[in-house]
């Protein structure tokens, strides 16, 4: 069992504590912005308006009471690059959100997009002791999965059981209480670079916050921007962030694959900056105001003043046509999407029953992106926005916040992970006191 495995257990305890207290913050540490939302949990009965599942598929047990976004600093490719700067940016966001909520938050759930996630499919099977599957059996079958050698300096970020099979029956969500002889399970394991995670943990600790959970932003954007049938039948969520583009594939409501392409909107901005010889801030402004990926005849005539402050009149009065701008942006966007295509091909995305692709994240707001994406990724492409959650400010409902909103949903309804189950007794050291305690607990 690794270090992060233990700390994941600790995080789950933190999360429970935060739920008891009713307030938790979520922190999306991205390359271009850091978003902090403060959630208040009032219990599920508070918002359930009548019978049935309740509004928003029962996911409305919380309410956003504080929201703040700040420009990210010191983050590159979704990884912390300059720690002091990132810490300051996190402090800014957290303080503003606290101020809006008028509440102090101590527990935070964070997500990040970088750290080179790698997916592994694991499987394991055991013979059941008695024929009924108990919770302990689930823990044992999860422990029986062969963990591949993912190398030094890698940590497990997610380890989610995605499928259980009992004898010849497969595709079970919950095998507990069912009768059979052999229990098998498939698990999706997502590993990330340990140092990146350590840096993020350290930054959050420096802000006097307790980490109550950690998630991959590709995963949480998938939760928030894929609708239920897409999650069920198979879909890929492409979260086009600033420094990294996350890819997550969902099937039967479980994430079965996640990856990230280390390119994003910042690279497009950098291309514009280089191509037009303008500062990065101007390039960002030009990109957001005039950007696009499909040039039309009209775009040749639309001239954009790109400005400058050198004092040289000719230099400062430069203009560029929108077609030229699109000519700069398009190759980079194509490159990103082709990279995504390669990752999806590697994941075997074409074998899924439905091959819906959902583009989300701040980069997905480029006009004409869906047309370009459908040429590269396939016909079933749509632009996704995050689910609406209660109390979220209008400014934070755009696709750039799908990670943050997904993290809210993740906080409210976390997926069962490996560490949510008790460690099977035989995994403890032979002379452990804990083992004795467990034995007593199990037998009385």
């Amino acid at each position: 069992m690794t270090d992060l495995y233990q700390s994941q257990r600790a995080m789950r305890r933190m999360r429970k504590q935060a739920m008891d207290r009713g307030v938790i913050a979520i922190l999306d540490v991205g390359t271009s912005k850091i978003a902090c939302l403060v959630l208040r949990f009032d219990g599920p009965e508070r918002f359930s308006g009548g019978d049935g599942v309740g509004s928003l598929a029962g996911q409305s047990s919380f309410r956003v009471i504080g929201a703040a976004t700040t420009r990210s600093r010191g983050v590159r490719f979704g990884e912390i690059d300059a720690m002091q700067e990132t810490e300051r940016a996190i402090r800014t966001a957290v303080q503003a959100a606290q101020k809006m909520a008028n509440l102090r938050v101590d527990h935070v759930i964070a997500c990040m997009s970088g750290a080179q996630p790698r997916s592994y499919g694991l499987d394991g099977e055991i013979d059941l002791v008695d024929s009924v599957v108990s919770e302990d059996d689930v823990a044992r079958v999860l422990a029986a999965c062969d963990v591949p050698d993912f190398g030094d300096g890698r940590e497990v970020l997610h380890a989610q059981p995605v499928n259980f099979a009992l004898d010849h029956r497969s595709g079970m969500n919950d095998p507990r209480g069912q009768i059979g002889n052999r229990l098998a399970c498939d698990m999706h394991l997502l590993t990330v670079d340990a140092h990146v995670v350590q840096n993020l943990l350290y930054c959050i600790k420096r802000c006097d916050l307790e980490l109550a959970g950690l998630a991959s932003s590709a995963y949480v954007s998938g939760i928030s921007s894929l609708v239920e049938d897409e999650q069920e039948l198979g879909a890929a969520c492409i979260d086009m962030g600033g420094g990294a583009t996350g890819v997550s594939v969902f099937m039967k409501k479980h994430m079965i694959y996640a990856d990230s392409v280390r390119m994003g909107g910042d690279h497009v901005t950098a291309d514009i900056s280089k191509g037009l010889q303008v500062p990065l801030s101007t390039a960002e402004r030009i990109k957001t105001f005039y950007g696009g990926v499909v040039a039309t005849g009209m775009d040749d005539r639309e001239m954009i003043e790109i400005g400058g402050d050198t004092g040289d009149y000719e230099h400062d009065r430069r203009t560029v046509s929108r077609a030229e701008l699109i000519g700069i942006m398009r190759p980079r966007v194509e490159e990103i999407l082709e990279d995504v295509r390669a990752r999806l091909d590697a994941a075997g995305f074409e074998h899924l029953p439905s091959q819906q692709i959902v583009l989300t994240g701040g980069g997905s707001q480029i006009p004409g992106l869906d047309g370009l994406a459908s040429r590269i990724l396939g016909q079933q492409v749509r632009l996704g926005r995050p689910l609406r959650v209660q109390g979220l400010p209008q400014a934070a409902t755009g696709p750039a916040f799908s990670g943050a909103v997904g993290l809210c949903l993740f906080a409210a309804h976390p997926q069962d992970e490996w560490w949510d189950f008790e460690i099977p007794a035989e995994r403890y050291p032979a002379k452990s006191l804990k083992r004795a305690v467990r034995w007593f607990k199990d037998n009385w």
Partner: protein
Amino acid sequence: MQPVAAPEPAKRDPAPTRLAYRLHRLWLTPLFRSLLRVGLPSFCMVFAVGWYLADQQRREELGLVFSDLRRAIEERPEFMVKLMAIDGASGELDQDIREIVPLDFPVSSFDLELEEMRRAILGLDAVAGAGLQIRPGGILQVSIQERIPTVIWRSRDGLELLDGEGHRVAPLGARTDRPDLPLIAGDGADAQVAEALALIEAARPLAGRLRGLVRMGERRWDVVLDRDQRILLPERGAVEALERVIALDQAEDMLERDLMAVDMRNADRPTLRMSPEAVEELRRVKTLETGAIKG
């Protein structure tokens, strides 16, 4: 890489410093916040008041200011009582009341102890009930219910007027001052005035001859008529006994005869006591009768 040496701040950093961040979090802590917003001001206030009042002289000054203020309000003309009006009291009682309630008007109504004054007035013998009221216009209204003397009691100390309940009303100089009132005498007679009045009422047919009632041994009554005739009445059923005597008198003119006393103490055996002359006369008459018979 960022410059390691302290970079000069080119622009204002939007990020809060660690200190500002921590202070903000501290400020958002509910306990700390309530302590600072409620606890600290209240502590300061209590401390300041306590410190101010710690000095004896200041306390006294404060008390003085307070009492002056109180005095000023009490002595406003609206609260002043300028005269006392006494209703239902005769001239003498009026004087008595004014004597025992010595007030030098004008006086503030806050200073009047009405209940105490009422108790003092009720202490007067001649007063049956008293009501005190401060009427608008600064008038102390005293409503008196006087005791009405119904009987004169001749006690060992002299003559006294009693009301119907035997309560002392006033001393009396001479019997002739109030010839209209009946007279009772004897120790303990004042405790049985009601019975005495009933007897006097019953003795109305004898009114012309009635001298008074005497309480004998603090247990029964004697009716005293003129010519020193007495009707000795029992302890219980005195009125009925008296009525029997009166009936006898009306039938036989008994009391007109030379009797000294009619003893009704034993109802089964009424007894007449005749005067010695009458006995002598009777004896003589009897002797004559017997002599005549013999002779």
